[in-house]
């Protein structure tokens, strides 16, 4: 008798039904018992089973009784073949390698655990970069990981589920959702790999490989699950590696190695599942019945005469079957307006096993007397702590934004040394983006270092002139750059970049004289409302025609702007390559040389100094032989971290002795981009020293009556916090400053 668990058979099915079909077809004689934990699992009604067991869902099951029943089944000569990852984890701890248990033991399983399956090192596969999330990890590091991988990352749960992440806000929301759903903070990020999916399924007994097959997905469900595929032999190198891995782990049971193959045909390991895949009957159709071979090798059940190969390819169909009267379908619950996190495969019940496993871990930790450690917090840089300390005595009425002048000086100096320069005959100039920090002091910092000023309106041009910039050191951009029309924009600007062809035509007809005119490009494949689209050949030709009419004495330039902090560093570098390709195409189409390339702004403070500026200059020269100047327009990179917002606690809300929420006198009016990037939180410690607050479960709520006035949702609020305490919210410059507004101040 073989018990097969995991009978859910919806669009993202468990493997139980496929495994049962394989066993029925491949073994000479066998009694099959289907086991599931939800009456909605459609495999319960399949006639393939001699009988079925419907156990309570995992949040209601009596675990000890379940273990006892399972022990009895094994003792009576039965075998247990689970196709549920989480159940397998529980089985491995509860039964280790009991006779009849056709699943891996805990030591074997430990080598396949996400995110770093240690056994992956013996497989001829590359591993996608991962980051294990924890409260110990600084948000800044998580943000950096996402930028480095161009915001193409997956947030994955411990056993199931993956959510695609495109922004910091996405990540914070998804992290909360998965943590709640799986009742664990053990989540991880995995860099996305663009490729086609394939798998290797194998089975083994006591470390000896029984069989393995490869499957290439041909048709997938909208969730990317296999719907149809092609079965083939495993490549020799991979097969040898699987054999080694199986022996090393002393594996028993089925398994699936999920692989992505990229455009260069490099194979990447996605994950190793410790059970047969749901498509496993597709392999039996191709003459490779792995579950039957496993059962035969492990239990000595004779194999049925080998069924001849029907096809190398398989597909699924949707089919209705009668419901077994003994297991009527569950009646749906009354529709609810509350947020429903889990609908479908097992609902929230499987997460209860995760909780169970977590409790076992905690119990194990307790028995070994491992002290519970508080999550370490990355300390503030000493110079920053000193500067905050000095400013502390100057804080008056809060909220109060304060310049961190030492930080600011370091940022400007770093831009001067790391960005400004000359290579391959191309000079690189920094133009401070005025909109991110319209402050005379900052503009003067830029001026004394020889930076340009970048304006997006006539008023910003006036501000630059007031700060001492001559017109020849001002760059003018934006869709409404001539506003307000009552302002006179002086001639002789370093560069004017138009946002549309009609604007360029008006500029040519205006009689103005500037040093350079150009266009901002809206690149195909990059979503933006700005710039001139070139996606249609006709539009490109029209643009080339107007550019050709720019007077000969005026230099030609192209401008591209897409925030690298938002699209990630890799994609930003692709965007630059793309912009240069379009600039070269414009040169070919107009016969005019382009001498200025403006790479825009939007750099994260940590990325500005790391980008390969000399290499980028060289690339400009390679694509545009007459280019002389590259302009870089950092704004937030020079001011985001150079301001702190002092705020005081207005209310402290405790639960079970812990501070759950605080209300502060700052709000999203002073911190309008609070949810777009991490903001460090600092408090004054008992001995008066500024001290960083780490990640936790607490929330910092703003003072205004807006539902989204949540300044931080994941912080470890100190228990001693009291009303009136002073906090610093760092990283509060740039757009947090220039876009702040006066909401909730009664007009004062």
């Amino acid at each position, binding site marked *: 008798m073989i018990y097969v668990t995991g009978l859910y058979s919806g669009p993202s099915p468990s493997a139980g039904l496929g495994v049962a079909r394989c066993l029925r077809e491949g073994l000479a004689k066998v009694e099959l018992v289907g086991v599931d934990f939800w009456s909605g699992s459609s495999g319960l009604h399949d006639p393939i089973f001699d009988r079925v067991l419907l156990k309570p869902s995992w949040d209601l099951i009596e675990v000890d009784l379940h273990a006892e029943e399972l022990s009895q089944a094994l003792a009576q000569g039965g075998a247990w073949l689970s196709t549920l990852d989480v159940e397998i984890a529980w089985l491995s701890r509860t039964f280790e390698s009991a006779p009849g248990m056709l699943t891996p033991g805990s030591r074997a399983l430990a080598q396949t655990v996400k995110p770093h399956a240690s056994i992956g090192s013996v497989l001829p596969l590359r591993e996608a970069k991962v980051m294990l999330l924890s409260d110990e990890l600084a948000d800044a590091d998580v943000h950096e990981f996402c930028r480095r991988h*161009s915001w*193409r990352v997956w947030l994955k749960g411990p056993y199931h589920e993956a959510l695609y992440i495109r922004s910091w806000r996405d990540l914070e929301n998804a992290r909360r959702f998965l943590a709640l759903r799986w009742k664990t903070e053990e989540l991880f990020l995995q860099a996305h790999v*663009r490729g086609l999916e394939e798998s290797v399924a194998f089975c083994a007994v006591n470390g000896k490989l029984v069989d393995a097959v490869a499957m290439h997905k041909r048709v997938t469900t909208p969730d990317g699950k296999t719907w149809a595929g*092609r079965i*083939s032999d495993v490549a020799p190198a991979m097969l040898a590696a699987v054999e080694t891995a199986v022996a090393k782990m002393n594996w028993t049971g089925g398994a699936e190695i999920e692989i992505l193959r*990229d*455009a*260069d*045909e*490099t194979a990447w390991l996605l994950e190793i599942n410790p059970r047969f895949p749901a498509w496993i009957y597709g392999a039996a159709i191709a003459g490779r019945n792995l579950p039957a071979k496993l059962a035969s090798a492990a239990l000595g059940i004779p194999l049925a005469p080998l069924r001849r190969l029907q096809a190398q390819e398989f597909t699924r169909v949707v089919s209705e079957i009668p419901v077994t009267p003994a297991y009527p379908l569950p009646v749906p619950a009354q529709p609810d307006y509350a947020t429903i996190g889990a609908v479908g495969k097992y609902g929230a019940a499987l997460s209860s096993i995760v909780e169970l496993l977590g409790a076992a871990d905690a119990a194990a930790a307790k028995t070994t007397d491992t002290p519970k450690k508080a999550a370490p917090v990355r300390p503030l840089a000493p110079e920053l702590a000193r500067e905050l300390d000095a400013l502390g005595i100057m804080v008056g009425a809060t909220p109060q934004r304060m310049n961190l002048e030492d930080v600011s000086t370091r940022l400007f100096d770093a831009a001067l040394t790391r960005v400004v320069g000359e290579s391959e005959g191309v000079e690189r100039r920094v133009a401070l983006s005025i909109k991110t920090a319209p402050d005379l002091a900052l503009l003067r910092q830029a001026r004394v270092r020889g930076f340009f000023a970048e304006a997006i309106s006539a008023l910003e041009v006036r501000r630059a002139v007031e700060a001492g910039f001559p017109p020849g050191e001002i760059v003018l951009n934006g869709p409404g750059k001539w506003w307000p029309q009552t302002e006179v924009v002086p001639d002789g600007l370093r560069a004017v970049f138009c946002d549309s062809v009609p604007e360029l035509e008006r500029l040519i007809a205006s009689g103005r004289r500037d040093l350079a005119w150009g266009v901002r490009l809206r*690149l*195909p*494949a*990059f979503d933006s409302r700005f710039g001139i689209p*070139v*996606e249609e*050949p*006709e539009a*490109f*030709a029209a643009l*080339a025609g107007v550019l050709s009419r720019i007077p000969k004495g005026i230099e030609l330039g192209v401008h591209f702007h897409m925030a690298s902090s938002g699209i*990630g560093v*890799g*994609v930003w*570098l*692709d965007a630059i*390559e*793309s912009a240069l*390709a*379009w600039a*070269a*195409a414009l040169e*070919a*189409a107009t016969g005019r040389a382009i001498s200025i390339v403006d790479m825009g702004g939007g750099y994260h403070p940590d990325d500005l100094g790391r980008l390969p500026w000399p290499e980028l200059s060289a690339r400009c020269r390679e694509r545009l032989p007459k280019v002389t100047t590259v302009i870089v327009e950092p704004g937030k990179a020079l001011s985001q971290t150079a301001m702190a917002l002092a705020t005081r606690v207005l209310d402290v809300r405790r639960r079970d002795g812990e501070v759950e929420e605080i209300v502060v006198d700052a709000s999203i009016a002073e911190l309008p981009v609070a949810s777009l990037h991490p903001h460090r939180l600092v408090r004054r410690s008992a001995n008066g020293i500024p001290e960083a607050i780490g990640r936790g479960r607490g929330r910092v709520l703003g003072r205004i009556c807006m539902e989204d006035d949540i300044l931080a949702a994941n912080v470890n609020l100190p228990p001693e916090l009291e009303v009136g305490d002073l906090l610093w919210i760092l990283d509060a410059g740039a757009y947090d400053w220039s876009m702040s507004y006066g909401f909730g101040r009664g007009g004062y």
Partner: protein
Amino acid sequence: MDLDAAATELSPAWQAAATSTLVSHGACCVQARAWLLASARSFDFARSDRATFSAPRWLTRRYVWGPTRWPISWCEAVKAKTIDCGVFAVFAREIFRAKGIEAYGGQVIRSYDAASLAHWRAKWARHPEAFPWIGEDQVFHEIVVVRSGRDTARIYDPTDGIWLDSGTFSGHYGHVAIRGDNPIPLDWGATRLRRGQWTALGRAPRLDA
């Protein structure tokens, strides 16, 4: 398997057909080609993917497959809404080459279900001047031979945006023969491609179109 004997059964038009090329008028066509290559770079993402052989999948999204009136120039082809496999192949070949990848013209004989072929005959019937690419149950189709290693090749079908599977030889969308312009012999799976020679794939094709 070489098709020295079987090749004589190929339709004379298919045997004689050379790899498609586009006409150039001069400046307008230079501009059109520049537009194509710049567009291709925008959709490539080679730097963030760190992949050399990413193919111009965007062509399939941008252009609809259908009859093309030949000869056609660059400036006409890029503006067309509908292009045939010959134009798709020229575009993809140029894009691969601009990336520094060796790419050559090539053709496959592909088998199709008769129910599909009937519709394509009807679609092309309105263009009697078009190349006779549809046989009884097989078609002549242009692809790109991409050199992927010292003596290996991959076959890209830009019309459908897929890399062909070197193991699918029969049935609807099966490939029964292939020919490439690659100057040196290249292996595509178990098949050796020699310049200008038709090679049967898997089993001898019914080359009776």
